[in-house]
C-alpha cells in the first residue's frame, strides 16, 4: 500500500498530521531500525517514543499526546506470544481494547489511534503502519476538537465569566469534532 499513498504530503501541499508513536524496545523499535537499515522510505510525520514494552504504555500517554496537539497516535509492540517479557503485550491488549472502545464512545475517531503488532523483522510492515496512519489522519484533518479543549492561556485574555468550560469549548468542539 505504501506506494499507493503520497508519503511526502508537504510537497503535495497536503495537511501534515502530527503523530506520536509509543513503541516497545524489542520488537517495533527494532523493526523501525530495520526499516532504516533497509532504507524503506516512509512519511516523516511520526515521532517515536521508545518504551521497554507495550505493557508499560499507559492510556495517559495517549491522552497527553492529544493534549499536546497530536493529531494521531500509534501504539505498537511485539506480536502475541513474542513479547520479550512473555506477557506484557497481552496485558496491553486488554488495556487498549477498553481504552479504544471508551474513546470511541466519547466521540474520538478510532482512526486517530493505530494499534499494531510489528516484530523486529517487519521493517516493511512498520513502514506500512506509519504510512497508513498518516493517510488516515491526514484524511481526518487536524484534531481540532481536542485542541478546542485547551484553556485560555495567559497570552490570551483570561476567562471573564464561569470557566470557558461549560459553553464555548463544547460548542467549538461540536463544530470541529473529528
Amino acid at each position, binding site marked *: 500500500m505504501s506506494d499507493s499513498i503520497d508519503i511526502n504530503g508537504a510537497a503535495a501541499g497536503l495537511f501534515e498530521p502530527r503523530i506520536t508513536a509509543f513503541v516497545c524496545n524489542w520488537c517495533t523499535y527494532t523493526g523501525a531500525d530495520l526499516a532504516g537499515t533497509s532504507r524503506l522510505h516512509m512519511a516523516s510525520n511520526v515521532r517515536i517514543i521508545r518504551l521497554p514494552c507495550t505493557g508499560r504504555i499507559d*492510556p*495517559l500517554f495517549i*491522552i*497527553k499526546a492529544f*493534549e499536546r496537539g497530536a493529531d494521531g497516535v500509534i501504539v505498537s509492540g511485539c506480536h*502475541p*506470544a513474542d513479547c520479550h517479557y512473555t*506477557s506484557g503485550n*497481552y*496485558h496491553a*491488549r*486488554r*488495556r*487498549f*481494547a*477498553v*481504552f*479504544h*472502545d*471508551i*474513546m*470511541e*464512545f*466519547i*466521540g*474520538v*475517531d*478510532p482512526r486517530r489511534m*493505530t*494499534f*499494531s*503488532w510489528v516484530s523486529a523483522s517487519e521493517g516493511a510492515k512498520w513502514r506500512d*503502519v506509519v504510512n*497508513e496512519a498518516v493517510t488516515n489522519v491526514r484524511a481526518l484533518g487536524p484534531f481540532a*476538537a*481536542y485542541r*478546542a*479543549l*485547551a*484553556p485560555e492561556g495567559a497570552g490570551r485574555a483570561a476567562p471573564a465569566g464561569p*470557566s*470557558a*468550560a*461549560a*459553553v464555548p*469549548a*463544547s460548542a467549538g*468542539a*461540536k463544530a470541529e*469534532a*473529528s
Partner: protein
Amino acid sequence: MNELRELARTLLTDGTVRVIIGWEDARRGARPAFVTDPADADRLIFDTRCVHNLVTYLDPRRDNVAELGKIGLVVKGCDAKAIAGLLREAQLNRDDVVLIGVRCGGVLEENELPAAVPLTPENVAPRCYGCDNREPALVDHLLGEAQPEPPRPVTTIDERVAALDAKPLEERWAFWTEQFGKCVRCYACRQVCPLCVCERCVAEKTRPQWIEASAHPRGNMSWNITRALHLAGRCVDCGECERFCPVGIPLSLMNRKLQQIVGERYGYTVSDDPENAAPIGDYRLDDKQEFIK
C-alpha cells in the same frame, strides 16, 4: 426494620461491634447513620430511600471511621459487590467487619424525601433494573422479606447508552465535552466511590502532573477518562458518583459502557464473589484484537 434494629442492638450490646453503620431519617430525608449506643438502634431504618452505598465508609484511609471501633455495616446486594472489590484488592479483612445484608427490591433515584414511597417506573433508580444481586451472599446476616423485582424504569441506562452510541461521533463528542465541561473538579465522584481508595489519587500526583489540576475542559477530559478507565471491570454500579456530582454529569453512562465493554470482550460481570478476579490485570491468549493491525 425491627429485625434490623434488634440485631443492631444485640451486636452493640454484646460488643460484637462498636458501631453500626446504616441509614437514619433526618431533616432532609434518609442519610447514613452511625449508631454506637444500643439505645439509638431504633434510629436505624431501611426503605426505598436508603440509596447510599455505605461501603465507602470502609475505605482504609478513613481513620475517623476506623476510630469508632469494629464496624457492623448494613449492605444491599449492590453494596456487597463493593465489599468483594475491597477484599479482592486486599483493602479489607473480612473478619474486621460484620456485614448485615438486607434483601432489596430497589431504591429511589431521588431519595431526599420525608418518607419512603413505593417504587414506580418514574421514581426508581434506573441502575436497579435487572439487578442480579438483590440478596447479597457475602454477608453474616441476611434480613428482610424476599423482595419483588424493581420496576422497569421509563428509560433504562442501557437504552440511554444505546441512544448515545447511535449518535455520530461528532455528537457524542459534543455531548461529552459539554458534560465534562461542567466538571468543577470537586472530586465528589472519587470521594464517594467505594473503590477509589488510593492514598494519593493519580489526579493529585504532581511529578509528573498527568492530569491538569484546574477545571478547564482539557483537564476535565483527562480526569473523567482516567476515572472511568480506573474503574473498568471494578465499578459495582452503585451510582454514587453520579448522585454526588454537584453539576450532574451522567457518569453512570460511562460506567455502564465500561461494564458493557468488559462484558462483551471478556465475558466479565462484577459480582460479590471476591474470587472473581477483575478482567484488567488478567488476559487470555485468544482475547479479541480486531482493533489491532
